[in-house]
């Protein structure tokens, strides 16, 4: 079991009170698993990703525990997390294109980063070049400034950099959202290749684009307004979604082959609740077409069939 998260609760501290961005998240990611994390903007998916790596104020850990490869991960202790960050757990941030220092050549930046972890750049260089070659970049990029590279090239450079020390867990936050379809496909294929070659053990791929997850993820976790809604193997998620939110979300996706004139897709009416003072119980209640009285209580996140978890009162009876 590579990553295990239990009841992880992270709030943002603001002048008006706590913003409840992540509430009681319990899930695990197996060795070699690529888990997709999906949801609309503001649902807490990035908060979840970041809280595992760098839980800095105004984020505040309210409760919960995290284990990585069997040992306790001190997520709230920024100092102690230093040993784990980059070595054991690594992140490709959103806007990775802007994550490179514009005043340093890429090689020098990587050397400084490795030195901060006490690793010799020269010794790592052959491996670095081999991996750059794998993502179809020439070693020449090490002598270039970030401005000289295109968006897709920067993205690939950051991918190589983040996984250089073979971390157990890689968190890839919206790495494909700013890319063209053809580059998007290439980047996704590289992510799978990194896993297959053992550069990373498990991956959490955060994205709002569910159709990408269908292509490469092994399992998908859907979040809604700070709570986990459903986790299932990819096929099961698309064949047989159990949470009403997931069902409506998948139904609202335009597909090649469906035209307005022939078939009208429908969005989900309404908007997600404010997370500053969210309503008690199921947070999807207001927009849910099948809500019932019991939904004012918070539904438990239960495993209804092996590997398929869902938080909905309608499904509780079936397990």
């Amino acid at each position, binding site marked *: 079991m590579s990553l295990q998260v239990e009841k992880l609760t992270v709030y943002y501290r603001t002048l008006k009170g706590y913003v409840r961005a992540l509430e009681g998240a319990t899930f695990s990611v197996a060795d070699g698993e690529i888990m997709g994390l999906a949801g609309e903007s503001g649902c807490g998916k990035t908060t979840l990703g970041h809280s595992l790596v760098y839980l800095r104020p105004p984020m505040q850990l309210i409760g919960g525990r995290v284990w990585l490869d069997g040992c306790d991960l001190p997520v709230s202790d920024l100092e102690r997390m230093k040993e784990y960050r980059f070595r054991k757990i690594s992140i490709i941030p959103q806007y990775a294109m802007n994550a490179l220092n514009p005043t340093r050549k890429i090689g020098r930046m990587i050397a400084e980063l490795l030195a901060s972890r006490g690793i010799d750049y020269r010794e790592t260089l052959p491996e670095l070049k081999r991996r750059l070659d794998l993502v179809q970049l020439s070693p020449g990029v090490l002598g270039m400034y970030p401005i000289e590279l295109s968006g897709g090239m920067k993205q690939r450079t950051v991918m190589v950099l983040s996984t250089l020390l073979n971390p157990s867990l890689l968190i890839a936050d919206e790495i494909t959202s700013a890319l063209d379809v053809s580059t998007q496909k290439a980047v996704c294929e590289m992510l799978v290749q990194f896993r297959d070659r053992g550069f990373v053990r498990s991956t959490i791929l955060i994205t709002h684009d569910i*159709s990408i997850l269908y292509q490469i993820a092994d399992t998908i976790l859907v979040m809604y307004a700070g709570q986990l809604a459903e986790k299932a193997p990819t096929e099961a998620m698309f064949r047989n979604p159990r949470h009403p939110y997931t069902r409506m979300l998948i139904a609202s*996706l335009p597909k090649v082959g469906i035209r307005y004139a022939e078939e009208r897709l429908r*969005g989900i009416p309404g908007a997600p609740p404010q997370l500053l003072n969210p309503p008690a119980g199921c947070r999807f209640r207001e927009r849910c077409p099948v809500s019932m009285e019991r939904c004012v209580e918070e539904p438990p996140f239960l495993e209804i069939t092996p590997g398929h978890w869902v938080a909905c009162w309608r499904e509780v009876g079936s397990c």
Partner: protein
Amino acid sequence: MLTVERVTKVYRVGAFGLRKLTAVRDVSFEIHDGEIVSLIGESGSGKSTIGKMILRLTPITSGSICFQGEDIATLKGRALKEYYRKVQGVFQDPFATYNPIFKADRIFQMIREEFFPDTEPKVWANRLQEALRAVGLNPPDVQNKFPHQLSGGQLQRFLIARALLLDIRLLIADEIISMLDASTRIDVLNLLAELRSRGLSILFITHDLSLGYYISDRAIILYSGRVVEMGSSARVYEDPKHPYTRMLMASVPRLDRKWERSGANLQRQLAEEGQGCVYYARCPLAESACARLSPPLVPVASDHWAACLRAGKI
């Protein structure tokens, strides 16, 4: 209604504008009444530049754009204002379009001051309510609010309502839904389709092929500033003739089919300026003639054109 005729746009870039960058090369197409045309291409393909030229936000280097028979480059003063009554644009980022200091309704106030100074306040209020309802908003919920109090989908619909207050005939929609969430995205798309049924024409600029297919009547595929394929959406999507379009169709993440592992080719050497096919460097079918000849856009079927020397042979 709108005719784009052999339009080229050259930007001057680099220090002192010494280098030239051709963003749009020799592009021609037409938009008819009540038609949704989607303009599809990757970043840097010149799709937004075309939108900007139609809106006269950037001058044309050569060629002409005619709206209802009139060359828009010659419009001045009153005639230009009349043009903007009929042609309006909505852009990608709804959050960046508003001034955060003022309430979001201010955009309607500005339209009134600029175009309808003589309208009675009561009449105007009614028209405004009507326009807001037409885009699926409930006026009391959204009026008198600051931009941060509204969602991205609501702000985007505000902008469409703003366009509707004018006697608009053509809407340039430049990536208007790429910043919206999947659940609200489809509502804005359906809204566009509804507007079309009221006789409005829409140029829908996007990089997302599945969205383009869902609403458009005709599709234009751009690569490196050149039209590589165009025609009715059904034909372009179901039977793409240009290798670039085929590659795009194979790269779209679909829900009914997994990607074939191809190890997509990422090398991207631009062909010499003005020589050969723009897609030569990445094309899997390229032959030696492709490096020398720039293929013209030729009909491959009824209402379907492609610019490829080998289009007939595929």
